[in-house]
């Protein structure tokens, strides 16, 4: 019976009862099944609590027996109405706040693309936007699976798309297709990709066209994909006519052809070099600026240096009267040093430049064979020019499809 939650739900009324022999009212309430609790005797009266639903019954009992009744407190949810009315502004504010939170959280504010390597994020986002997923899109306006399908259809470089929506952030996770390389699978020749001298040949398939030590130029067929049947001389009594009639076999030539190739690099160095250095001498001038006059606090206007660089720090405040400020100028003296470089040194620098230039052309991982330096300029030239040639041994085999016609 004493259920506090239920009491709060129904509402509790605290009553003060005046009159002689209050016990009578309590007993009559008991007979009527009115639940009374927290009964306290005060000097002239009795205070107790009843449920809101029992109030009228108790009022009748009290009226019939000439008792005075007074409500001293009301508690519980039914009486919250007054509180709600009093604080309507606060409550409506809270409601608006909740609504705003709900409304704001039902839009996508951030779109992120993950796991993409070759395809640009912006391309994926643009495609997603085409299917309804973009910054500021309402969550109700697109379907996740539709967007996923749409992106997959539009971007055929993707093999998997997952759209994950967490709060206001959408994450598009993609997996790119690994496309097969443009390897030639049909019949082909192996040709030289560079000029060079053949060092070694490893034939895997096809017919060898060149020998070790032979000079080849770019585009020469090294291993032929057209294989002519070779008559085996060791077999005695072979049917030569039959062999001649056999058509040549067309295969995909394979093999490794290592050749000596050359790389050339060019470098140069000026015989005289000019260099500007600071001498360490400084001149500082500090000027206080007022709207009426400039006051030089320190230093002279002209630093008296032939060459110098100046650093000016300027602080000014604009006021209705004019500009007040502070100018700090520091001049540092400079000197040009002309240096003559000896021939040996110039060759060294030019060579280094040429090697640097050469390294840009070469791929990594090549075996260094020989390095030759050739000076191109005459001793009287102001600029020393040189050429560096490096020899390498590398695989020059390149597959080229056979033109069937």
């Amino acid at each position, binding site marked *: *019976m*004493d259920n506090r939650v239920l009491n709060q739900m129904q509402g509790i009324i605290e009553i003060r009862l005046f009159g002689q022999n*209050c*016990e009578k009212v*309590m*007993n009559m*309430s*008991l*007979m009527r*099944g009115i*639940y*009374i*609790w*927290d*009964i*306290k*005797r005060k000097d002239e009266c*009795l205070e*107790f609590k009843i449920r809101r639903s029992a109030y009228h019954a108790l009022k009748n009992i009290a009226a019939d027996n000439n008792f005075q009744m007074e409500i001293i407190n009301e508690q519980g949810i039914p009486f919250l109405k007054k509180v709600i009315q009093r604080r309507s502004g606060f409550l409506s504010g809270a409601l608006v706040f909740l609504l705003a939170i709900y409304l704001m959280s039902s839009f996508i504010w951030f779109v992120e693309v993950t796991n993409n390597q070759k395809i640009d994020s912006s391309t994926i986002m643009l495609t997603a936007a085409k299917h309804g997923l973009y910054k500021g899109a309402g969550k109700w306006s697109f379907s996740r699976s539709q967007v996923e399908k749409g992106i997959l259809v539009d971007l055929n470089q993707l093999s998997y798309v997952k759209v994950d929506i967490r709060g206001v952030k959408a994450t598009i996770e993609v997996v790119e297709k690994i496309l097969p390389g443009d390897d030639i699978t049909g019949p082909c020749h192996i040709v030289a990709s560079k000029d060079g001298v053949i060092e070694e040949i490893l034939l895997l398939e096809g017919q060898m066209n060149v020998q070790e030590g032979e000079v080849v130029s770019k585009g020469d067929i090294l291993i032929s994909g057209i294989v002519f049947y070779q008559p085996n001389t060791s077999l005695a009594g072979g049917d030569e006519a039959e062999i001649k009639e056999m058509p040549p076999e067309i295969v995909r030539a394979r093999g490794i052809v290592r050749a000596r190739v050359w790389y050339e690099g060019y470098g140069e160095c000026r015989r005289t070099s000019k260099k500007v250095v600071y001498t360490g001498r400084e001149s500082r001038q500090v000027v206080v600026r007022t709207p009426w006059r400039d006051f030089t606090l320190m230093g002279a206007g002209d630093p008296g240096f032939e060459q110098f660089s100046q650093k000016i720090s300027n602080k000014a405040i604009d006021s209705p009267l004019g500009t007040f400020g502070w100018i700090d100028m520091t001049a540092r003296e400079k000197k040009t040093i002309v240096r003559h470089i000896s021939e040996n040194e110039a060759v060294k620098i030019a060579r280094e430049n040429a090697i640097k230039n050469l390294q840009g052309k070469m791929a990594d991982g090549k075996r260094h064979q020989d390095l030759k330096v050739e000076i191109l300029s005459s001793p009287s030239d102001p600029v020393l020019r040189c050429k560096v040639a490096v020899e390498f041994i590398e695989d020059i085999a390149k597959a080229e499809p056979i033109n069937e016609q």
Partner: protein
Amino acid sequence: MDKKREMFNRAMAEFLDIPKDLVLDLPRLTLTGRNELYLENHRGIIEYTLNRLRINLSRGFLEIQGHNLEIKSLLPEEISVFGEIDAIKFLD
């Protein structure tokens, strides 16, 4: 006649081992410390002041003496009293 009936009921309760408060409508008192009293099977309140509480029973009445007595809850069959209890007396 009533007395005979009561005797019979008592004998039956003893024989069948049934709690007497159920069969004979006797009050059951639970006193926790000296501050809390719980009483079942009462017949209403006769008198209630801060120092004295008299509760009607099926036979006679119960007088509780103490200070700052307060009826915590009042139900048709049960009553729970809080306060500093000095004495509990059964009166006819």
